[in-house]
């Protein structure tokens, strides 16, 4: 069953014909070629598929593409570039918060949603904001440091 949907992604308006059973994660990765958003569990436990929808972190592996109709989506590709990385992306690099990098895009987006709302978060605020992201490489220590570093810079 094909349905036409219209949405804004990373500031760009797009129109797509999707199947009702297409998951938003797959449409983002395959139809739009944005592979920063990842599959790691498919059941909403790990956060690797996180995108921002209306600036809120949500799980694209648990959304039908049709549910993105008329919505505003941001993926990791939309928050920074090589020449102009987002302060969070810079902080992640500098703080050593990127090991294998698989969990990183989702983690950064949730951190961004946090800092956009709460520019001066406590450590507990940060842990809660990234609580829905599993990472097996870092033990989260430097990820938390990176977010604190970015928050400091963004406040200036």
């Amino acid at each position: 069953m094909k349905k036409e949907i219209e949405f804004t992604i990373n500031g760009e308006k797009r129109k797509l014909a999707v199947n009702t059973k297409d998951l938003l994660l797959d449409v983002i990765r395959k139809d739009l070629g944005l592979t920063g958003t990842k599959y790691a569990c498919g059941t909403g436990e790990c956060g690797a598929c996180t995108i921002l929808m209306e600036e809120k972190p949500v799980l694209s592996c648990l959304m039908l593409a049709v549910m993105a109709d008329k919505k505003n989506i941001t993926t990791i590709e939309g928050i920074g570039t090589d020449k102009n990385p987002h302060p969070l992306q810079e902080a992640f690099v500098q703080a050593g918060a990127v090991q294998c990098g698989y969990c990183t895009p989702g983690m950064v987006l949730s951190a961004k949603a946090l800092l956009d709302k709460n520019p001066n978060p406590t450590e507990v605020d940060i842990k809660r904001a990234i609580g829905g992201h599993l990472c097996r490489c870092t033990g989260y220590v430097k990820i938390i440091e990176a977010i604190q570093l970015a928050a400091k810079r963004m406040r200036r």
Partner: protein
Amino acid sequence: MEECDGMSANSRVLINNFEYLEPETVAEAITILTKYGEEAKVIAGGTDVLVDMKKGRISPKYLIGLNKIPNLAYLVEDASGLHIGARTTFREIEESGLIKEKYPLLLEAASAMGTVQIRNMATIGGNICNALPSADFPPALVALDATIRIACQSGERAMNLEEFPVGIRKTKLECCELLKEVQVKTLPTHSGTAFLKLGKTSEDLATVNTAVRLTLGNDRKCKAARIVVGGGVGPTLFRSRESEALLEGNIPDESLLREAAQAACKKMSCRPTSIRGSPYYKTEVTKVLVMRALTKALERARVG
């Protein structure tokens, strides 16, 4: 025992075809649900439905999305109490100043559920209708004597939330009905509430959870008590009326609270084997959790 069918389950893609319908009114939704009956499934946030479809547990031919129906997500207080639209997300509850101030039990329960992303997507209506005994929010609602409003062909009907779940994933909702709203009465003065949950990690399904409310009278006696237990303690959450009866009409002290906590285990009917703990363990922990929750609630009742 929970079965895992590794063969047809595929958490990467949905296998079976279905139609996605988006009614624009409640009445339209009811019509569609009536037409397709068992072949249709309502989807709001999708965090339960899509997982179930990926696991092959359900395979609806029609998914009824609720996002186009206006006035289904709201948090409004009036003289009778708090009205929560069924499509309200857990995040909206978590971030509501009204709830923080006047219904803190709901804040505690809502923020104990899932993760930030899940709370941004999951709706209380979906959570209630999915009727997993481990859910965190329903015990809190039941502790506040919640009632629900269900839309059906003949209009609407109301019911105590306590009676709504009848088994694991089973409720009194007919297939042509839609949960519209949850109502919670304003908390009387000198009330204290507490919600506690025990899981393996900080973000986990509950092994045991409990929501309690104590309302004291001017004579310091307990005017009303609600002790609700959920988690893997039975096919549904339950209210321990025996515990409540021990407290009501008496001045609550530590030994009375302990007695009530012990009594809370009487209604448990845990599975003999479970990955979340043996019946022995769940019983022990229920006593502890209820005791701690009652202690907190009493403190808060005395202050408030």
